């Protein structure tokens, strides 16, 4: 059960932490329409995280609710990929982080639709509809920026290069990944990686951007080792539940 919960948390934590970063961006987009689109993606991700945390609380059977799981863990108990913690440096970084994650989510949830676990199968079907839209949006932005002004091209290439080293964190198998694949609950991350790589290459080609070649890769996240950013994210997110532990909001 513990391994299965960890597998569930990998899915939920990615969604939670990325939605936090997108929430920070509310009222800060280059124009109003894009502010609303950004919020839409954040809302989809919170919805995904919430559903999974509630299921984890139910599986645990300790009388906790989904919010307790989302809010009350220690930093090294969060198992999201290190990529989604990366800050909102500019619109190019936000879109590059989104594009890498959306492409991962798209192929991950496509595979997860075949899971033998009923809950995961259902959540994969639901998320795939949303993620298909997310991926279309972020791919189109990468192409638009790559083919745009010199400044846009340069900023986007910088963001694509800079965030590249965090992408393996999605694909390095944790113990939970290995076990869940064996049980036909989880997905084969090698398959997901190959599809992801092909999609990323295709979109970068269409955007006239270079595929990063750096082999300096950072693998953190799934085993609870994070960047310095996560501590600040959690300090902010957990502030009220920590300060008023008896309060119900």
């Amino acid at each position, binding site marked *: 059960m513990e391994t299965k919960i960890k597998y569930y948390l990998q899915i939920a934590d990615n969604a939670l932490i990325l939605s936090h970063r997108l929430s*920070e961006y*509310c009222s800060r987009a280059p124009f109003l329409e894009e502010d609303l689109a950004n*919020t839409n993606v954040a809302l989809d991700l919170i919805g995904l995280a919430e559903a999974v945390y509630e299921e984890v609380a139910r599986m645990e059977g300790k009388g906790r609710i989904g919010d307790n799981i989302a809010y009350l863990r220690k930093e090294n108990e969060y198992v999201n990929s290190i990529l989604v913690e990366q800050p909102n440096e500019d*619109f190019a970084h936000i879109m590059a982080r989104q594009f890498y994650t959306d492409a991962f989510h798209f192929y991950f949830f496509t595979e997860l639709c075949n899971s033998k676990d009923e809950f995961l199968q259902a959540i994969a079907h639901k998320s795939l509809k949303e993620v298909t839209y997310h991926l279309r949006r972020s791919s189109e932005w990468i192409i638009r920026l790559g083919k*745009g002004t010199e400044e846009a091209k340069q900023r986007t290439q910088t963001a694509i290069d800079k965030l590249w080293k965090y992408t393996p964190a999605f694909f390095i198998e944790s113990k939970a990944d290995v076990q869940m694949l064996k049980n036909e609950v989880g997905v084969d991350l090698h398959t997901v990686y190959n599809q992801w790589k092909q999609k990323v290459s295709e979109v970068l080609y269409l955007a006239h951007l270079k595929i990063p070649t750096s082999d300096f890769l950072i693998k953190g996240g799934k085993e609870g080792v994070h960047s310095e950013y996560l501590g600040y994210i959690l300090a902010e997110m957990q502030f009220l539940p920590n300060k008023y532990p008896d*309060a119900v*909001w």
Partner: protein
Amino acid sequence: METTKKSEKELLLEFEEKINGEQKIEPLDWMPEEYRQHLIRQISQHAHSEVIGMQPEGNWITRAPSLKSKKVLLAKIQDEGGHGLYLYSAAETLGVTRDQFIQWLHEGKSKYASVFNYAALTWADMGAIGWLVDGAAITNQVSLQRTSYGPYSRAMVRICKEESFHQRQGYKIMQNMMEGTKDQQEMAQDALNRWWWPALMMFGPHDGDSPRTNLAMKWKIKRETNDQLREKFINKTIPQAELIGLKVPDSNLELLTDGTYKHSDINWDEFWQVVNGNGPCNQQRLAHHIKVHNDGAWVRESAMLTSLIEE
């Protein structure tokens, strides 16, 4: 076929007949310049208010205490941005672009609701803003659904549907806190103390001090005066506060036999100070908008270039 050109006097007569007959004025209809200018000012100010209003609430999204409250707050702020879009679109029908409206905002030539120049200090402020600020806004906006300018009126119909949900979600936050711990109850009362008067100020100066009210009423841009709307809001909100155990911060409140309330007057010195740029967050709100707009310039320029190439 021979057409006769109508005089300005005849056009004005026709325009006023339409208004008196409760017909809407549409963008291509003739309208007096003063009417157009009043609408440009009012609708753009309204649009800016929605957009600047995203900031005090945006301040708390990342600290929302539960996933549900985070979703609701985020969706609410998204609605406000959407209202900004409807209103900029309505205002653009009067011949001014959104870029121009934003430039006027940045130059200080166009204002936004002063209430957003107050700080959102605790989670209870998310309740107080929804309940009181959106509550005051909706009191005004329900009346504006019948405004004489068609695009503005239609935007208000959509906006009102969402604002009534916002008001309820704000009140729900306050209600939950008043049913909660002592800390939560104190936080809720503190938020009411800080937001009550700014919410009453949202209706603007007394009718006698509001120079544009007469014409706006005559041309049915406004359907009720500032003081009428303020009294409506006060009369419906005080019982809501009492129902959940909150005390409205006015020592002169008295329930009259006709069900309305006698109350203190607003601190008009504070009102004008905030309107004139000296509120707690005036500089901060505008600086945020200007910075974000400037930071996003390269994205807009690039997007414009690629859309031109694709065309």
